[in-house]
């Protein structure tokens, strides 16, 4: 009896002891290069009989006169080949319970296949077909244009979307990152342009394949065999250079929406990218500011003032430069007050040391978050993609965890003063101000 009572007398005010995260183990891929130049990176792990395969292509050089080509070509890859109609492609993939998606990003465009391993012999030939023999049928192009125009009209009614577009345009101008196609731009898409773009971009020398899942040797052989034979690079290599980014002179943009209940705010400035040695440390700074639920911006603007449902900050890292940004939607009548509070929080990082307990919390949160982001073999492949396409290696994550563990308050104060210059901030308001 006494024993039981003693057990029940736990001190609920006292937090249990905890352990800091010591090391993070990342799976590394096996590499295989095909005769046609395509590199395959292979992550073999997991219990489920399935794989994810990604075919990744660098986008072609951005042409401001034809800003939609990279996106349109990628999106229309499933719309028909010399031997398969769009409907037949969809039928084949769906029948085998597979998922085929195309994803356009600013730097790369992807084709992703999720398939049960036992059906790869049926699903891989479909991917081969769309990568080697897409024809962009005129009727499909017209449907694509019309539907995209309607979707864009809907998006443009959303304040946060307009704020993001305005911000990107100001920061990145006439580059692939600053692209702000309007409804009319879609009408400039021409079949011949799409086909020429496709032929230059989707060739083996511009392709990286990443396969992740439970991979038997015969699956790998099937993949290699399918994409090694009958797929050759053209003589002209893909031009994957990108024009230099120019930032706009104007730093303030207000798009008025007289009936808005909330205003979207997006502010930020050109920033260092992942390749820069200071990048891990400024990620700590960003996390303190607005990078997690307990961040200063969330505490002040949501949890203290109740101005918003959510606010956050982030760092985007592109080859041609990055950005640090803060984004939120706030009650329309407190929009100005909210921007003042945001500026206050940025100033604080420049004049006051981050208290030790807050910094310790953020360190542990960031390491836990990194560990937790490695949910399955797909996430390990994703980490590799971050490195590979930034030209970094696995030493980056060792350095990242080391810096997150050891960066001091003094160093962060200096970094805040070096990188968070108010005169460089761009500010976009959509709604009322």
């Amino acid at each position: 009896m006494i024993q039981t009572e003693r057990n029940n007398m736990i001190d609920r005010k006292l937090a249990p002891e905890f352990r800091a995260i010591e090391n993070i183990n990342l799976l590394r891929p096996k590499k295989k290069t095909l005769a046609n130049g395509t590199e395959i990176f292979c992550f073999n792990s997991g219990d489920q009989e399935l794989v994810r395969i990604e075919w990744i292509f660098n986008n072609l050089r951005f042409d401001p006169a034809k800003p939609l080509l990279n996106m349109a070509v990628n999106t229309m890859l499933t719309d028909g080949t010399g031997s398969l109609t769009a409907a037949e492609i969809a039928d084949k993939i769906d029948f085998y319970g597979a998922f085929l998606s195309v994803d356009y990003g600013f730097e790369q465009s992807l084709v992703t296949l999720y398939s049960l391993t036992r059906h790869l012999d049926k699903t891989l030939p479909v991917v081969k077909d769309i990568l080697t023999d897409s024809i962009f049928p005129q009727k499909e192009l017209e449907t694509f244009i019309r539907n995209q125009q309607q979707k864009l009209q809907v998006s443009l009614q959303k304040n946060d979307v307009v704020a993001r577009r305005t911000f990107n345009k100001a920061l990145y101008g006439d580059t692939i990152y600053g692209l702000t196609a309007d409804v009319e731009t879609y009408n400039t898409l021409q079949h011949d342009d799409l086909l020429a773009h496709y032929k230059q971009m989707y060739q083996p020398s511009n392709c990286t394949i990443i396969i992740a899942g439970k991979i038997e040797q015969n699956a790998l052989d099937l993949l290699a065999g399918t994409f090694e034979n009958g797929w050759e690079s053209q003589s002209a290599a893909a031009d994957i250079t990108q024009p230099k980014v120019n930032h706009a002179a104007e730093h303030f943009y207000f798009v008025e929406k007289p009936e808005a209940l909330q205003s979207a705010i997006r502010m930020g400035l050109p920033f260092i990218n992942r390749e820069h040695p200071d990048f891990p440390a400024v990620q700590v700074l960003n996390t303190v500011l607005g990078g997690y639920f307990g961040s200063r911006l969330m505490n002040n603007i949501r949890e203290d003032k109740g101005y918003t449902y959510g606010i956050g900050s982030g760092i985007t890292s592109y080859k041609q430069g990055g950005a640090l940004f803060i984004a939120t939607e706030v009650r329309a009548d407190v929009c100005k007050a909210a921007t003042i509070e945001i500026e206050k929080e940025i100033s604080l990082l420049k004049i006051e040391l981050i208290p030790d307990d807050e910094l310790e919390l953020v360190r542990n949160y960031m390491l836990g978050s990194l560990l937790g982001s490695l949910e399955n073999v797909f996430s390990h492949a994703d980490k590799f993609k971050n490195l590979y396409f930034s030209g970094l290696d696995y030493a980056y994550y060792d350095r990242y965890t080391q810096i997150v563990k050891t960066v001091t308050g003094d160093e962060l104060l200096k970094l805040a003063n070096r990188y968070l210059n108010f005169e460089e901030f761009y500010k976009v308001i959509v709604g009322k101000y």
Partner: protein
Amino acid sequence: MVKFNRFTLDNGLRVIVHEDNTTPMAVVNILYDVGSRDENPEQTGFAHLFEHLMFGGSVNIPNYDGPLQKVGGENNAFTSNDITNYYITLPSANLETAFWLESDRMLNLAFSEESLEVQRKVVIEEFKQRYLNQPYGDVWLRLRPMVYKKHPYLWDTIGKNIEHIADAKIEDVKAFFKKHYNPQNAIMVVGGDVKPEQVKELAQKWFGPIPAGEKYTRNLPQEPQQHEVRREIVTAKVPVNDVYIALQMPGRREDEFYAVELISDILSRGNSSRMYRNLVKDKQLFSEVHAYVFGSLDKGMFVLEGKPTEGVTIEQAEAALWEEVEILKTQEVPADELTKVQNKTESTMIFSEMSLLDKAMNLAYYELLGDANLFNNEIENFLAVTPAQIKEEANKLFRKDNSSTLIYLAE
């Protein structure tokens, strides 16, 4: 196949343990058997507002998020019409922190006036951001009361209106906690890099001493079968017209549910689906079209939705949607086509086993349905559906006098 162990504490708390040693993380998922259907019709949005208050400090721990972030953990929660679900992921070495935090807020909240004051404002901004300041954002606020006349599914989880949230009092918060937040009304799933004996010991230590509380007996007005055509047209600040047709359908525990969900897949899942192919691609009547189900525990909603392309009238659009479902009523679906959507469902379930959190949430939800192991048998229910059953359910579902049509007209 997701393996698990299961035990119940003396106070009624059901605990499920799922070991997955491929990860260095652990998840703790707690499902409370309370949703917006359990609200007072004059105080709607309360279950969801309450979810926010669960993060406002508990009786012994003033701040919920900080201690968790400090040990490398993350958390979130969601509220639906049926359930409120809280989850934590953290390094497994620090599992006990999750038990400490979750047990204290199940024991008692701090009930701070200040927290209520702020969260009222936050939820009102959430209301505006997601429902009012978006094109078509208010669709469920309009459509639910058309489909449901008696059952509390007639309001959305966010609530009927902002006033209900603005008027919430601390006494109401206390009463809601007492009624719904006790061990016998909760299901806890602990998964990841954990051991059943360890979980049993921690559960006993931290949750064992919590009083069982009073048993809540649910007694909701059930929705009568619809026998009338319902229709509403709104002119709104939206860029393009939009057509929604909602139909009453069987609840999540009914045998017929599986056939009805597969009907939605036949109609609109993926680019090979009937509505996408016929209405978007071939006839080009819509820029986008969807069919989906709300798998509610009580009578659910089946929704057809489409945005007509320029020049297509509302009448043409509606007629095209009905024409498509009419085919399902008169012709049996070809075996290959049924196999296709069944295969897709099967592979989706296998893919969901790649995510620890998904597995934990599913185990908790199926335990609420009656038995966590139903999760492992679920695919059999989908594979057993026949073309004849699809036709039979289509005939019950797609009746004009079972429909509620909501039209958005662009100003």
